């Protein structure tokens, strides 16, 4: 790593090459500055100062103390109002989680497993005969987004529109550093998203279907139903979270298993290992490298003074490599008995979709390895992972014996 980058921890973390080898900046942060003040920009890509929190214990504390480290003001992605429930801190947030958690509970998700397994196989059918695929484009992208549309009861023909919105919001196509252009794209996309869901809810007000949107219309907490604005603010967050993160997770995990055949072979030989593989690779790869917060009340962490209003970058990927919590943290160990990784966060804002994500990733790995036990990255493939949410731009794979 060059000296320039080393001078600023955030620049190092958000540099174009960091997401390909994130353990390098993570180790640096853990060893040199587990709580660091930086002028090198924040997770949203905006310039300016932020505080990076990287140690496991500090992250754990921060996640559990939203009265100090808040997510209320932390992200601006074209939304007019706070995203629900992410940008509502306790106590207001509990009512939304009581309403939404049951829709995404492990029991509810388990009921979807057979249907999801069929979908995974249908997607594999589209390319298996070719003996190769672009894993990101052909598998990791369609699977979670198709399933999201089924879950919400929205037409599959709208998928390209959703993917375009996702890209506009998360990776707006602008010259590096052109924050005004990025904000303009996000604002315009935001308007389209609100308008789309307005009309989707209008349709379901008139006639309920069996999808999530209709269930949200009828959901009640403390005798109250959600207002139209609340419904829109929930959906805005759902499409960003539902379309992007599982794609990134699949990219990260298959890349790891493609390049570590002995780990892959263990899963092929013993499919029941899939649960452990998912948890350990969530820890080791941490597809969502960082999440954003802001300081709500002044607080001192490891001698660094955090002031109200400061941006905070929670470096979850570093926390998941902290030796304080994880024995032999640098080693992928599917037999790790204890694994309290923070890939889905912790505290009141624990990822609402974590049970859906776990189901999708586990079943996808099981079916993929049952049908395509041997594969490798295509020779000469040129691909990179994006910073923040580690998605590959392309991931060409060739099937067959790894040695062939």
């Amino acid at each position: 790593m060059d000296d320039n980058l080393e001078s600023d921890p955030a620049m190092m973390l958000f540099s174009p090459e960091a997401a390909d080898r994130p353990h390098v900046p993570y180790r640096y942060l853990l060893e040199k500055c587990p709580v660091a003040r930086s002028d090198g920009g924040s997770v949203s890509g905006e310039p300016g100062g932020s505080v990076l929190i990287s140690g496991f214990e500090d992250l754990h504390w921060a996640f559990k103390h939203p009265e100090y480290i808040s997510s209320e003001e932390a992200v601006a992605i074209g939304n007019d109002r706070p995203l629900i429930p992410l940008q509502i801190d306790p106590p207001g947030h509990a009512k939304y989680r009581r309403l939404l958690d049951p829709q995404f509970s492990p029991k509810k998700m388990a009921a979807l497993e057979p249907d999801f397994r069929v979908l995974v196989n249908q997607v594999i059918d589209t390319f298996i005969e070719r003996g190769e695929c672009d894993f990101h484009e052909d598998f990791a992208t369609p699977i979670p987004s198709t399933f999201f549309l089924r879950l919400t009861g929205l037409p599959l023909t709208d998928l390209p529109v959703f993917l375009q919105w996702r890209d506009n919001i998360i990776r707006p196509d602008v010259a590096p550093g052109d924050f005004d252009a990025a904000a303009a794209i996000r604002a315009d996309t935001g308007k389209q998203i609100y308008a789309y869901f307005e009309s989707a809810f209008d349709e379901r007000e008139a006639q309920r279907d069996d999808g999530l949107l209709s269930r949200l219309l009828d959901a009640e907490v403390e005798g109250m139903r959600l207002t139209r604005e609340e419904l829109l603010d929930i959906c805005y967050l759902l499409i960003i979270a539902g379309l992007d993160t599982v794609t990134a997770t699949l990219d990260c995990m298959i890349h790891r298993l493609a390049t570590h055949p002995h780990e892959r072979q263990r899963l092929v030989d013993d499919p029941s290992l899939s649960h452990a593989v998912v948890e350990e690779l969530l820890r080791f790869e941490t597809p969502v490298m960082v999440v954003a917060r802001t300081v709500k009340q002044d607080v001192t962490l490891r001698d660094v003074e955090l002031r109200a209003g400061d941006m905070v970058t929670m470096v979850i990927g570093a926390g998941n490599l902290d030796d304080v919590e994880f024995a032999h943290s640098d080693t992928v160990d599917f037999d790790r008995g204890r694994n309290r990784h923070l890939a889905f966060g912790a505290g009141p804002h624990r990822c609402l979709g974590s049970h859906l994500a776990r189901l999708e990733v586990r079943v996808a790995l099981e079916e993929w390895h049952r049908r395509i036990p041997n594969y490798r990255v295509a020779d000469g493939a040129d691909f990179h992972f994006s910073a923040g949410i580690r998605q590959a731009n392309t991931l060409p794979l060739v099937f067959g014996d790894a040695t062939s």
Partner: protein
Amino acid sequence: MKVWVDEAACQGHGRCYAFAPDVFEADDQGHSIVLKAEVTPEHEAGARAGAENCPERAITVTED
């Protein structure tokens, strides 16, 4: 062995009842409920795994 879940700390990660469905179960929101506070020997490993994989550290086991 005894096991208990701190309800205020539990955030519904669901690791404990995935590891030990005979010791823990989920309420409608996905938060953990201890089925039997007194853990029988055949379920001790599961109770321990639940505690060791709780990201909130909401589960306590006491040997006695």
